[in-house]
């Protein structure tokens, strides 16, 4: 094209032009100095843009040849010995700026050390220093992948791959060329790369279904990632080596500090320092402007500028905000912000932002405004502020901190207010958070409560469904009863009776006792129930003398009596029974002391018992010898078992005996066949019946050699007892004898 493509890029040339165009210019003045037909421009030394560019290129070439980095002759270096660090309370920005300049200095040192070496040499030489096989860290790739997924979820992997490939090749290309090409050439190369990608998007089948708007976004995406990476490389794209950017940064910063006295009235912008809204907006705008430096990609920087300018636009109270208002306000903002590395940032964006974006759109417009503002500040004169030259010089000679103090104070106040707002918002957030926690805790408590109730209700339901009746206890006796009933018919069967009867046998012998007492009262078994208690008493009464000695086991005595009663079927033998109680009791007494003899030895009893025992032995023996021969020896084993089981209970007498008694009692009841006697009392007593037989069976213990025989006796007798009551009688009768 006609006019330099890097017109914008060479803005640093124009902004140093101090001569203002006079209001009236002759036609000849307008023409190019070179004599070509086009208009010339005083900013371009009277050349037209084309001639000027050629001129500049020649000049640059010459410069390069002589020494690469002489400061531009037209650049006036601000020399101010009197540089007072501003002590204003506007410390926040100041601090930020200082920090950034600190890092900047470090970078400078690094850069300059590299630069000094290469300054004498050609650029080609310095290129060799950078290894061409420079590898891009994978983190760029990963970051792009992630970002792509979040930003373009609708696009396919082909697009993703294409864009990543482009970024890769783009970065490699830039790094390769960075030291070979001048900045402007590099910029043009970058622009061509952008165009290449744009063309690729238009032609590639991968992008066939991509909307035009999405393509633009993709372009931004690619630019962002490529430039973000390149931005962090020192002296490649951001304030690259071979440019004055850094020096200009410092110069600009100092210049802005010098101009801190410039107020809103000088710029004729309508800003009200006393209006808190206005202050707030200005503060926000300044924050955004300062944030431009921390943004890495040109696009991000642009969006910072855009946001800043939006605040500034709102600052301009005029309803249709116009550029006439915007520009002064923006200049004022820049003056108050004094953004770090301003020139570098602007140059970076101008050179490496996608030119299409920079030319159109809101971001481009505002960025252009910012460029204008910076250039205005650079060239600021008394005339441009509409003030007297003397006054201007006076202000400029003044220490930097004096002039702007009022606004600085207002802005610092604003900052404090903002901080307070942030704190308040934070506190508010915390408050709502705690409130949430409270409500949740309450909810949790309520939940726990309801849960508890629920559980209680469930438990209640279960309880009502299955009432709390102690079934097992009831069942056991019932089962026992059932057994009685069930087994009752079994008694008729020979097999079962044979086993059960043996135990009853010994009872049969004592039974006559009850018979002796009962016969007078009643013949029926029903009636005998009542006598149960009576006979005991009676018996007890009778045998007071004997009782006193065996008082250790009164229960046993009672039980034995009961047993005797239960077996009261045989009422025919009253006379032997009359003896038997004594005998049985004596047996009990005798037995117990013997058993105890092992544990305890009551001396008095043993003597008495011994005498009677001997007689018993004889009786037992006689029976045993008579009966066992006729009967089979099968029942032995169960009998033995029973004895073993019943043995233990005797020592503790009641507790264990009870359990065993339960087992045995059924059998006895069957034997009795008295179904009317369902009363538990009786049953219990009967359950304890086995005690007596055991006692009987234990008799042999005294004569151990006859243990088996005694059992035989027991076994034999029951079988006979039912069938043959008569033989039993002699046995019982024998005992007392």
């Amino acid at each position: 094209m006609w006019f330099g493509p890097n017109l914008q890029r060479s803005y640093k040339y124009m902004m140093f032009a101090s001569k203002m165009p006079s209001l009236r210019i002759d036609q000849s003045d307008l023409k190019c100095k070179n004599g070509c037909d086009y208009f010339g421009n005083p900013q371009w030394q009277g050349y037209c843009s084309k001639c000027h560019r050629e001129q500049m290129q020649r000049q640059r070439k010459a410069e390069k040849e002589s020494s690469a980095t002489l400061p531009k002759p037209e650049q006036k270096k601000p020399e101010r010995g009197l540089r007072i660090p501003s002590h204003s309370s506007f410390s926040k920005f100041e601090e930020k700026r200082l920090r950034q300049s600190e890092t900047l200095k470090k970078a400078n040192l690094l850069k300059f050390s590299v630069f000094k070496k290469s300054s004498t040499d050609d650029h080609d030489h310095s290129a060799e220093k950078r290894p061409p096989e420079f590898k891009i860290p994978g983190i760029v790739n990963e970051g792009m992948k992630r970002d792509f997924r979040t930003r373009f979820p609708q696009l396919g992997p082909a697009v993703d791959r294409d864009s990543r490939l482009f970024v890769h090749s783009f970065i490699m290309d830039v790094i390769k060329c960075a030291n070979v090409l001048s900045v402007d050439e590099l910029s043009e190369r970058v622009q061509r790369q952008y165009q290449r990608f744009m063309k690729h998007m238009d032609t590639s089948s991968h992008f066939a279904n991509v909307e035009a708007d999405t393509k633009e976004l993709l372009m931004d995406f690619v630019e962002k990632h490529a430039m973000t990476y390149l931005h962090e490389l020192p002296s490649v794209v951001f304030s690259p080596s071979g440019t004055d950017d850094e020096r200009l940064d410092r110069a600009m910063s100092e210049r802005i500090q010098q101009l801190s006295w410039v107020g809103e009235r000088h710029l004729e912008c309508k800003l009200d320092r006393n209006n808190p809204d206005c202050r707030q907006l200005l503060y926000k705008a300044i924050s955004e402007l300062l944030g431009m430096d921390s943004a890495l990609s040109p696009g991000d920087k642009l969006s910072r500028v855009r946001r800043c300018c939006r605040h500034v636009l709102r600052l301009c109270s005029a309803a249709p905000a116009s550029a006439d208002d915007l520009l002064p306000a923006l200049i004022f903002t820049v003056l108050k912000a004094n953004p770090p590395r301003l020139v570098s940032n602007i140059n970076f964006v101008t050179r490496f932002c996608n030119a299409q974006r920079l030319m159109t759109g809101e971001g481009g417009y505002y960025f252009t405004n910012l460029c204008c503002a910076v250039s205005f500040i650079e060239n600021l004169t008394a005339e441009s502020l509409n003030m007297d030259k003397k006054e201007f010089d006076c202000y400029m000679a003044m220490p930097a901190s004096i002039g702007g103090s009022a606004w600085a104070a207002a802005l610092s106040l604003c900052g404090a207010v903002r901080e307070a707002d942030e704190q308040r918002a934070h506190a508010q957030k915390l408050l709502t958070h705690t409130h949430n926690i409270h409500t949740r805790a309450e909810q949790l408590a309520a939940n726990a409560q309801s849960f508890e109730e629920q559980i209680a209700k469930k438990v209640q339901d279960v309880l009502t469904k299955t009432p709390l009746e102690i079934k097992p206890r009831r069942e056991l006796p019932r089962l026992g009863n059932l057994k009685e009933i069930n087994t009752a018919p079994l008694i008729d069967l020979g097999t079962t009776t044979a086993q059960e009867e043996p135990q009853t046998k010994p009872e049969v012998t004592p039974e006559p006792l009850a018979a002796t007492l009962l016969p007078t009262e009643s013949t029926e078994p029903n009636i005998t129930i009542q006598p149960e208690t009576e006979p005991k008493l009676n018996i007890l009464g009778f045998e007071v003398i004997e009782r006193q000695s065996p008082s250790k086991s009164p229960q046993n005595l009672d039980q034995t009596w009961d047993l005797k009663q239960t077996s009261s079927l045989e009422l025919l033998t009253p006379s032997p029974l009359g003896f038997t109680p004594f005998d049985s009791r004596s047996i009990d007494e005798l037995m117990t002391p013997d058993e105890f003899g092992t544990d305890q030895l009551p001396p008095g009893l043993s003597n008495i018992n011994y005498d009677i025992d001997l007689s018993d032995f004889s009786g037992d023996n006689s029976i045993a010898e008579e009966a066992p021969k006729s009967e089979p020896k099968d029942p032995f084993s169960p009998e033995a078992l029973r004895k073993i089981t019943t043995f233990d209970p005797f020592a503790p007498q009641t507790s264990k005996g009870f359990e065993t008694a339960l087992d045995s009692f059924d059998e006895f009841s069957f034997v009795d066949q008295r179904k009317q006697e369902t009363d538990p009392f009786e049953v219990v007593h009967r359950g304890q019946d086995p005690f007596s037989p055991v006692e009987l069976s234990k008799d042999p213990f005294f004569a151990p050699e006859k243990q088996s025989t005694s059992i035989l006796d027991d076994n034999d007798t029951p079988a006979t007892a039912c069938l043959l009551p008569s033989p039993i009688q002699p046995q019982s009768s024998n005992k007392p004898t």
Partner: protein
Amino acid sequence: MTSGPYNYSYIFKYIIIGDMGVGKSCLLHQFTDKKFMADCPHTIGVEFGTRIIEVAGQKIKLQIWDTAGQERFRAVTRSYYRGAAGALMVYDITRRSTYNHLSSWLTDTRNLTNPSTVIFLIGNKSDLDGQRDVTYEEAKQFADENGLMFVEASAKTGQNVEEAFLETAKKIYQSIQDGRLDLNAAESGVQHKPASPGRPLAAPPAARDNCAC
């Protein structure tokens, strides 16, 4: 984003220049805000200083940049000119000084834009005919001498505002058709946006042919 009827094939960049207070911003707002009433039922595509118009069946997005007109900013506002396809030079018919400055504005425009940039002269505030300071004839003569298009308009009433913008667009489009405007140049101020549904349909077969080894 713009889609469907808001797709456009071109973007033209305009700048509005002129002295402070001639009503540049008002003209811009008159033109851009009108889109709410006329073309677009929705606020879709509402963008900073833009409006989509139609010229010869082509949708064109006009991107209009307002500029600061103060004399003291003259030296620094040339960044605005970069890549402008059209320049609307505005003066106030009730203030002669604004008319007198036109030549310097014209100089700047000529210097800072490319030769194919269409310059349109607008005499604003035509509703204030009673306070007229510059006659139509005088301005018309100036326009003719410098090869400018000229119209008197009123940002207040909207008279001729639309015409000025549309005529400029037509002229630019014509120069594109004539080939005088190089679309690929960054400074042309025109961006060509191939309509997304049309082009890709044709493109894929070609791409596939290339891929087939």
